[in-house]
């Protein structure tokens, strides 16, 4: 695969854009000065300046070394990355909608299925693993530690009481 972008240049440009955005947002922070101290804008400005400075320095000194660098991921790698991130996103929304317990059983199975790649797995074992782990997490946290986990807006709307 032909390497079209120098990653450090891309990083530098993104860094400069972020620094400019932080600086712009910082100017909008209302100033409430307490005597003899730099105020709430000082550190955000310092952060923006640091990000900008080291983005530029990195582009000057690190970018030339990147010319021969291999691509971070090939096409198949990016597909895998997109897939796992998309699954995480769906899992997050499902957690809110159908609750942590059911979303985790389904989500964990989806994760295991995706992460296994070409390997063969015992489906019965995988299903049992997903149910057991999700149940331990859910009931351990909600009943054992009394830490609430999402119960699901769907069940609340339908007035169904979940365990």
């Amino acid at each position, binding site marked *: 695969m032909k390497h079209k972008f120098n*990653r450090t240049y*891309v*990083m530098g440009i993104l*860094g400069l854009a*972020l620094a400019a955005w*932080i600086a712009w947002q910082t100017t909008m*922070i209302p100033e*409430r000065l*307490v*005597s*003899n*101290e*730099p*105020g*709430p804008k*000082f*550190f*955000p400005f*310092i*952060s*923006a300046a*640091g*990000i900008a400075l*080291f983005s530029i*320095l*990195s582009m000057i000194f*690190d970018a030339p070394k990147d010319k021969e660098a291999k691509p*971070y*991921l090939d096409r198949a*790698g*990016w597909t*895998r*990355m997109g897939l*796992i*991130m998309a699954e*995480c996103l769906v*899992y*997050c929304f499902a*957690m*809110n909608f159908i609750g*942590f317990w059911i979303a*985790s059983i389904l*989500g*964990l199975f989806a*994760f*295991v299925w995706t*992460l*296994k*790649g070409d390997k063969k*797995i015992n489906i019965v074992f995988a299903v049992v693993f997903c149910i057991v*782990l*999700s149940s331990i*997490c859910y009931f351990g*946290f909600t009943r*054992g*530690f*009394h*830490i609430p*986990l*999402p119960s699901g807006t769907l069940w609340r709307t339908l007035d169904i009481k979940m365990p």
Partner: protein
Amino acid sequence: MEAYLSALMTLLQPTNLIMMYLCAIVGCILGAIPGLSGGLGITLILPMTFALNTELSFAMLVGMYVGGVSGSFIAAVLVGIPGSAASIGTCYDGYPMTKKGQAAKALSIGITGSFIGTFVSIIVAMLCSGFIADIALMLGPWEYFSLCLMAITMVIGLSNGSVFKGLLAAFLGLWLSTVGGDLVTNQLRFTFNNINLYGGINVICLLMGVFALQQVATAYAKGRLEMPEVDASSLGGFGLTVKDFVDNARTILVSLVIGLFVGFLPGMGSGISNLIAYGQAKKMDKHPELFGTGYDPGIWATEVSNNAGVGGALIPMISLGIPGDATTVLLLSAMTIHGLQAGPMFIQQNPVLADLIFLTVLISAILVFVTEIFTKRWFPMLLKAPYHYLYGAILVICFMGAFSSTTSMFSVLLVLGFGVLGVVMDMFGMPNTPLMLAFILGSKIESYFRMGCSYARGDLTSFVTRPISLIFILVAVYSVVGPIITKAIKNRKAAKSV
């Protein structure tokens, strides 16, 4: 002495002892599996500790830390892949020893070396921390600001890769730490009227995203889910004699000192100490040519030094509130979550908890040592753990941990966002430790700086006119500029010689 006894009694309560032991063993397993680590284990169990009392929480977290560092040599010896950066040096002689049919001896050296390193270093930490904390009480906000600055720059200067990218990551972390209400005026910054951001970014979300989710996503995308086969034919017996200890006593002692010192310095963890100790052992030995061929002192040096870093790293964490390595960054965040303020007053205000942390290390080290000795022959099974189940479980625990830290779905989405940030940083070659360290120390740096300015009536020169503060600032500047100058000189010399 009273505090020690009280801490010991607390730790020996069955629940505390069992949970500490379980966490130490889980840490050991995570440390043994390449790509996972005890630090990841700490990240995952941190949300679980919200509902537990502080003593039990720290028994679990510290147990996981000790197990994680100890277990990292297993894969290095058996398959030549280090469980973490702490055991890179162990691969050089551990794996060749396994190939020569001496796996039992290599593992026994790793187990015993790890135990000696942790045990002795924590005794030193117990003796030194109080003394260092007393000295630290004499320092003001100027010195603390400079010390925090030095901790961050040392991490950057000594980490592999570009110094500029490390600094960029640190400033990004510093900016993230400014999100939320300002400490002095309570003015909201970068919150965009989102109530979830008023208290700042939750440290758990950042850790879960940048550390755990990124690790799983990149490992899967890069196809790093396979382990080589393990030669388990020679795992019987202890393999060590008294003569082995006597012959390697000098290497053990020197590696202990190196591990302790390197662990004590902010930012220099066991990832560096094991390589320095290996190099030193090679220099001192009568047969340097044997290093790399399956030679005992190579394993002794790396395993004693990387575990000695545990005690070394705990000294600045407890007495100064400055983490010594990446894992103590996590322990420091755990302290913050539990409402504790690490620093010079910590030992005075929480003597029992401080001693409990030290004793947890001590007892975990003993328990891990005994367990490893008796279960050595089953170590190859650890390396057959199916990654698809492990990583799947990690993802679910990540999101669960984020939700439980704030009981808000916003945190769950924040993990995903930070996961993407972690992948982007990995793609650009930006290290994530400076980001995490700057994020955790960011609010301290800002408050010390503003306090210093306020006390000195706006006079910024007070940071360089106070001698100790000036020393810290000079070290901070040197740790960033030094490697750049050294590299430039080397490049010039190389160019001249061509």
